[in-house]
């Protein structure tokens, strides 16, 4: 069965040299695709989670009474929102990477404590996080002062009000924009290729550099994988949105 499948694509590559689906019959290439896919998934999941955390914390700090904290967050947002993520990746890895300490796990070769994958995660999370701060902030601003005041009058402290009243309500307002930003983030993980993070795009480009006839087949796979990945994310987010819907509140 599997043999027949592989045989079919091997022959297809022979008869149509423009359509060499090499990763479907050559186990070595299959392996490269799978490790790339796994890296892309890891990168996406970690960056999505981290960027949401950054968004929540950043939005909280923006409401701080301490002026320099607010300015710091504002500066962060301006920097990451107004510069290209590709340049950020290069900057993090090549510029900041020079100043990070190194260590020698095997006692001989010095390696930096933050690998290129680590820098990609940091850079991409902060990039998407900057937008998330803005997204959550507009959600937070949509929570009426009177609701917070009622919580205050019941004796809740600032953190409790934020955690139990403001965030749950703000989340519901923010979800559609958050959805868009996270979709963008997942797509932007491909840019990690510039610092040689072995994610899917990196692996597929390597494959068609080795086997030029595989170029079209690699591109096709790239699109399919991203349509599926983003599709899963959007489905999850929509389900979440529906689950958080409050009876008799907002538009439903």
């Amino acid at each position, binding site marked *: 069965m599997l043999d027949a499948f592989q045989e079919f694509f091997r022959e297809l590559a022979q008869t149509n040299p423009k359509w060499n689906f090499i990763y479907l019959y050559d186990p070595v290439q299959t392996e490269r695709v799978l490790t790339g896919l796994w890296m892309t998934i890891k990168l996406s999941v970690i960056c999505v989670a981290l960027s949401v955390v950054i968004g929540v914390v950043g939005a909280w700090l923006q409401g701080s009474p301490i002026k320099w904290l607010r300015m710091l967050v504002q500066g962060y947002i301006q920097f990451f929102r107004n510069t290209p993520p590709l340049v950020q990746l290069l900057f993090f890895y090549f510029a900041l990477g020079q100043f990070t300490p190194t260590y020698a796990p095997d006692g001989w070769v010095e390696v930096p404590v933050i690998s290129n994958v680590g820098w990609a995660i940091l850079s991409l999370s902060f990039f998407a996080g900057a937008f998330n701060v803005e997204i959550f902030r507009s959600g937070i601003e949509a929570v009426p002062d009177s609701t917070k005041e009622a*919580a205050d009058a019941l004796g809740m402290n600032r953190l409790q009000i934020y955690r139990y009243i403001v965030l749950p309500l703000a989340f519901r307002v923010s979800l559609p924009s958050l959805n868009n930003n996270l979709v963008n983030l997942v797509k932007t993980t491909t840019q990690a290729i510039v610092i040689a993070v072995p994610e899917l795009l990196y692996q597929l480009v390597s494959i068609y550099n080795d086997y030029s006839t595989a170029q079209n087949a690699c591109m096709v796979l790239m699109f399919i994988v991203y349509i599926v990945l983003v599709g899963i994310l959007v489905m999850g987010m929509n389900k979440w949105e529906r689950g958080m819907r*409050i009876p*008799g509140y907002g538009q439903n």
Partner: protein
Amino acid sequence: MSETEWTPDQPIVSIKDVHKSFGDLEVLKGVSLDVMKGEVICIIGPSGSGKSTLIRCINALNDIQAGSIQVEGLEVNTTGLDKLALRKKVGMVFQQYNLFPHKTALENVMMAPLLVLKQPEEEVEKRARALVKKVRLEGKEDSYPGELSGGQQQRVAIARSLAMNPDVMLFDEVTAALDPETVKEVLVTIKDLAAEGMTCILVTHEMGFAREIADHIYFTDRGVIVEHGPPKTFFKSAKDPRTREFLSQIL
């Protein structure tokens, strides 16, 4: 010393010469009043006269520039105010209910005892159910605020406030946003409370209700208390022309 020894023969809420400004606008110009434990007082007066501001000052939602407000001997007008101690003494119900829309009626009532008083969930739930029953909303425990009428929401808000076991309840025009038909159900709830001996400070435009329930009525205008007295004498023989004019418009 911000907390002095308080005994029930002293006023439970004691307001002395309170001045409050928003920027250049002086809203309270030396207001004094005392409330004894178990008393029900109503504050009436024209719009903008500072009624809301006054009762918001009592639980420190507004700060004051001068004067003193004591609740059971706890001075509210100090920088080192133990807000939580005050919150445990004073409950407040707002005109717009301000329920938490993402929580059911029962959860709204349970939230503060769980988070603030850190009481065990089982006990809190039992009390919350009893409170929901008390405000005559049995069967609505699992409804969200958006599924309740204004009057029902307001009664949940009253139960939510009572869950903290306050000694004094503040009501700021709690029926002003309601349809005439639902006003009554909320007033009945407040009447029940007053009958049980809860100290209540109400801002209201419901003169009939004030006359029926209040031990004492205060009339405010432009930041001062113009006149006050027990309802019988207050409504029959108001002396100040401003009071008379107000009463003639509203009655």
